[in-house]
């Protein structure tokens, strides 16, 4: 049973995603694993962070005792002030997103389909959910990367052939990084790019709801 194989921890997922950020990119980080990504951007590669709370070039999370209720990220976490920030309203924050000025967004997901549909705002069992900025990011960011666990708490695959949960955006995801694999949605289906150490392509397929396109050579997860 491959599901028992050791999976990568959240920090390793974040490290792998950080490699996808080109120098000079403007990046918006979602809540959860995506928030960790900023810790792993190499010192010699500068990226700019955008938050839909209304701040650009924002810094790391605030140190204990240095919290300011007027300086938060989209998840309501307090930020450390850094030189070079700019503040703006919500309408400008989303003009930046929808207008294609944010190069990369990294989001969590409930489900990603083989062709890059994203579902991350509602679990049908709850009957109500929060969209927040996710639909705007899915529609507007130049590149959408999903960082998530490969399976949910009950072991259900989150990489699926078709999403059964309500969509956040259609065909918007360009890369999926999980605790067992790196995958790329394509018009033909989900292509496997890398596997976690100790995992074979077949192992990954066995915990995946989408039929994977497996090339002749699949690299081991690089971090």
């Amino acid at each position, binding site marked *: 049973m491959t599901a028992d194989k050791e999976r990568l921890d959240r920090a390793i997922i974040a490290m792998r995603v950080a490699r996808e950020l080109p120098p000079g990119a403007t990046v918006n980080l979602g*809540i959860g694993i995506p928030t960790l990504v900023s810790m792993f951007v190499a010192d010699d590669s500068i990226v700019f962070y955008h*938050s*839909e*709370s*209304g*701040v650009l070039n924002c810094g790391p999370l605030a140190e204990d005792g240095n*919290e*300011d*209720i*007027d*300086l*938060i990220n989209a998840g*309501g976490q*307090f*930020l450390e002030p850094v030189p070079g920030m700019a*503040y*703006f*309203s*919500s*309408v400008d*924050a*989303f003009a930046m*997103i*929808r207008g294609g000025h944010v190069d990369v967004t990294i989001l969590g997901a409930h489900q990603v389909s083989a062709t890059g549909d994203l579902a991350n705002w509602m*679990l049908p069992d*709850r*009957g*109500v*959910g*929060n*969209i*927040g*900025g*996710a*639909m*705007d990011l899915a*529609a*507007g960011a130049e590149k959408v990367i999903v960082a998530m666990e490969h399976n949910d708490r009950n072991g259900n695959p989150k990489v699926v052939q078709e999403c059964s949960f*309500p*969509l*956040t*955006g*259609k065909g918007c995801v360009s890369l999926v990084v999980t605790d067992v694999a790196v995958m790329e949605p394509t018009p033909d289906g989900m292509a496997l790019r890398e596997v976690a150490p100790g995992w074979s392509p077949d192992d990954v397929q066995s915990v995946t709801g989408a039929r994977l396109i497996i090339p002749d050579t699949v690299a081991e997860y690089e971090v």
Partner: protein
Amino acid sequence: MPPAKLDAEAMARRAAGFIAPGDVVAVDTGLPSLIPGVTPPELGAWFLRNDGMLNNLPLSLADAAAITRGGYVNLAIVNAAQVDAAGSFAGTVSAANPDRQPPANSVDLAAGSGRVIAMLSHTDDQGRPNIVEALSSPADGLRCVNAIITDIAVIEVNGGGLALSEVAPGWSVDDVRAQTDADLSIPPALREMDFSLPANAPPSKVYPDGPSAIADVPDGATVFIDGFGGPGGMAHYLLISLRDRGSRDLTIVSNTAGIARVVSFGTPPGRTAIDHSVLIENGQVAKAIASFPVSPSVSRPSEFELAYRRGEVDLELVPQGTLAERLRAGGAGIHAFYTPTGAGTLIAEGKESRNIDGRDYILEYGLRADFAIIRAHKADTNGNLVYRGTSRNFNAVMAPAARVTVVEVDEIVEAVQLDLEEVVTPGVFVQRIVKRPDGFTGYE
């Protein structure tokens, strides 16, 4: 032989006489640009120029045009070449220059303003009338002029045509008629032009306390409430005032529907954060329009989610950027817009979809409210606002989109004390200002 015609400054003075205290006045280039210089400053008028300056407040042209199109201009004074009996006007196209196209800012002014006054010479440089039965060139504003000020007369435009209401000193009705190419009716109240100017100050926007500032919020009102999520930027004092006022059946429009109480956001131990929940548990809310309506945690439901599950409140879920854009459209006189956000999702159901240049969009409509309850850091007595950090968020977007915007601030300063380059919300969008009481916190 008629006496001399008025000079430009006298015409500007007569035009200034139309301005009521506190009016927002859009002034075109040419003759109207002289009006600010002759208007008593005590009148507290806001002059919007076509370079984006609102008095001394610099605006982007997008924001300046939004003031006009959004219906905030009480009086627009356009520079016309011809006006006809129906109140349509043409810009500077004239018989002498038939192929020249007009400056096209008067077209904006014609469309969005409360009253439109056209200023022009009564005749052109060859003595031909500029007040005509029908325009000789295409209109730049259709049937929008309410009054005409020329160098010999003031003419009111009403449904039935043109009525001569004032003549320049020494001019007779017959003299004016002789230089006019349209029928002029002569009301009994016809008088000679008066150039005296009122100098009454507009009423103060500063209210003594929260309850007085929201005392007229009726049952069934739509109310914008800011607060991105946490306590920053939330008008806690006004929320408590609205709870105590007890208005019911409210539709609240906000990013969340009150999650600060169930998510820590730095709440001190033993305290409860004030948020939308105070209205919901008091049974005042019928509906929420929000992007992040419920707690991120299923196990810690908010007051709104509990009421929603009991079927007591309705919810319209809107993506955050679409909410911001709908508010901006509501304030900026944009009636609808196409956005890519939500195309192909549940949000698109029942809405018009359209492919534009290969990309899918959905049609969303502008959103306005009766009241906005917002929070800023500082206000001056004219209502100009500055915010702090990320607490600007929806506050600055909501202010222009409500009929009455009430702001809660930490500090109120005199009008000259704010750095005008720092002002984010111009005072034309703010009707009432309340200082948050000293020592008031966002927690109960």
